[in-house]
């Protein structure tokens, strides 16, 4: 029954696949047999990622795409379909960590709010919209949204990132419910604190821990931690799973009512 974990011959589309978590997922999926169409704003990193996929003997495309621009998204998907003839999996991974400006709410401008919402949430919507029609015509498909622990809990002065990532979890649920009749599933990966250069370079880095000492498992995550779960969600092994999320966060979200390490001992009353 474990052969269903293979991605042999599948066509996976991923946004933000040239760096960070996206690149780690690209590598794992290519090893599992997938052909991959990689979107990203900068051509250099996605070209490099595509070269890695091809070196493993799979096919790859690298198409520079701004997911906040629906015309570019539609072209990305159309070009992918032209090349591969089908799309089995759409991974909405592109995220604007840099765009999230940390400010008190009264200082956030309309533009501050709009940019990260457009990239994280609207971008995922544009991509889902573009693939859902061709997927529904084939009667099969998988949409995977990459959210964040900040989509479930608050961060200090992190308004746009938290709201857009929370929106992606809801987008997943609504997609799952409405696309189930067409054979399409939708699930969310919720990464916790996993250091990447993108987070490091952004204002979010001030809200992310430097070490794992405040997490139940005592260490931070690695981008590679997402590989097997991305492959599982992209594979037929997850066919009966939809509308769900998989949280990959070192145990942080399992706790939270008391600080990590808080270990009271209270005897039972007689």
């Amino acid at each position: 029954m474990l052969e269903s974990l293979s991605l042999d011959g599948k066509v996976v589309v991923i946004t933000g696949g040239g760096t960070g978590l996206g690149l780690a997922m690209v590598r794992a999926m290519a090893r599992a047999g997938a052909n991959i169409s990689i979107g990203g704003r900068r051509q250099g990193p996605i070209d490099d990622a595509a070269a890695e996929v091809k070196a493993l003997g799979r096919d790859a495309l690298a198409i520079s795409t701004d997911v906040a621009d629906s015309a570019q998204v539609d072209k990305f998907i159309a070009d992918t379909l032209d090349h591969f003839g089908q799309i089995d999996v759409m991974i909405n991974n592109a995220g604007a960590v840099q765009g999230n400006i940390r400010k008190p709410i009264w200082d956030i401008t309309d533009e501050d709010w709009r940019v990260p919402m457009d990239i994280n949430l609207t971008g995922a919507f544009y991509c889902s919209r573009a693939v859902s029609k061709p997927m529904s015509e084939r009667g099969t498909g998988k949409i995977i949204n990459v959210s964040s622990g900040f989509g479930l809990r608050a961060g200090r002065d992190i308004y746009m990132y938290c709201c857009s990532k929370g929106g992606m979890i809801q987008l997943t649920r609504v997609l799952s419910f409405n696309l189930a009749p067409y054979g399409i599933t939708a699930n969310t990966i919720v990464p916790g604190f996993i250091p990447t250069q993108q987070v490091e370079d952004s204002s979010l880095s001030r809200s992310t821990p430097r070490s794992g000492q405040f997490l139940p498992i005592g260490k931070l995550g690695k981008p590679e931690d997402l590989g097997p779960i991305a492959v599982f969600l992209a594979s037929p092994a997850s066919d009966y799973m939809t509308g769900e999320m998989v949280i990959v966060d070192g145990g942080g979200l399992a706790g939270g009512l008391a600080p990590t390490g808080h270990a009271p001992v209270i005897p039972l009353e007689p």
Partner: protein
Amino acid sequence: MPILPEYSLSGRVAILATAGGDQAPILAQALAEAGASVFAVARRPELLEPVLEALNSSGPHGGVVADAATPAGIAQVMDAFDRQHSQVDILVNDARSMFAQPFGEITAEQWNTVHSRNVLATFQICQEAGRRMIQRGYGRIVNIISGLAERGMINGSAFAASQAAVLSMTRCLAVEWGEHNIRVNALGTGWFTVEDIPLEEQQKELLVRYTPLRRKGHPRDIGPLLVYLCTEGCDYTTGQAIYVDGGLNAHP
């Protein structure tokens, strides 16, 4: 077919605690297929037999009949296990009995039986296996639960409360044993069957038509995910419930 080596359980020893049911043999097969040695626990011989049969009794598999909810029973389980294995890497708890009754008619005895089988047995075996895992600084625990851990259902109170109890224990153990390199997760299921019923036949049932994917789940639908949650690679996910329920959790 390329399959990631990360999904291998080669060299791992797994305890599979089951309250019976048709699901256990298939879950045992999934673990064995990934390379684990499986030691099954069931309350009655006729519940253990199909599991051992599915494992083909070849290789280092085995099992014991005992009631893990009693002090004598759990001692019997661990004695039998320790005679066969020197380590436990994986504990899968699929020990739950379904029960549904109008709330006003549930007797205290019935309530206690449901909670003894579904919660107390899981608690005891987690404690025993966990002790051994802490000593070695490694372990993976997966508690298989029902989606009723999160939702209400008419006549479901005793069973649903037991599932919520196991989910809550999962979260607490995850944060308590995280530092020992033990990961504890729950795998939640919806409406499942082991029979391969044609879709048209299944969809005559309202419950099936209500499920967004319009079919019942089969244990095969959770086998690969169970294997992943038992791997060393499942290192950064802990204290979570992952539901495989045909989309019911997102249902309005």
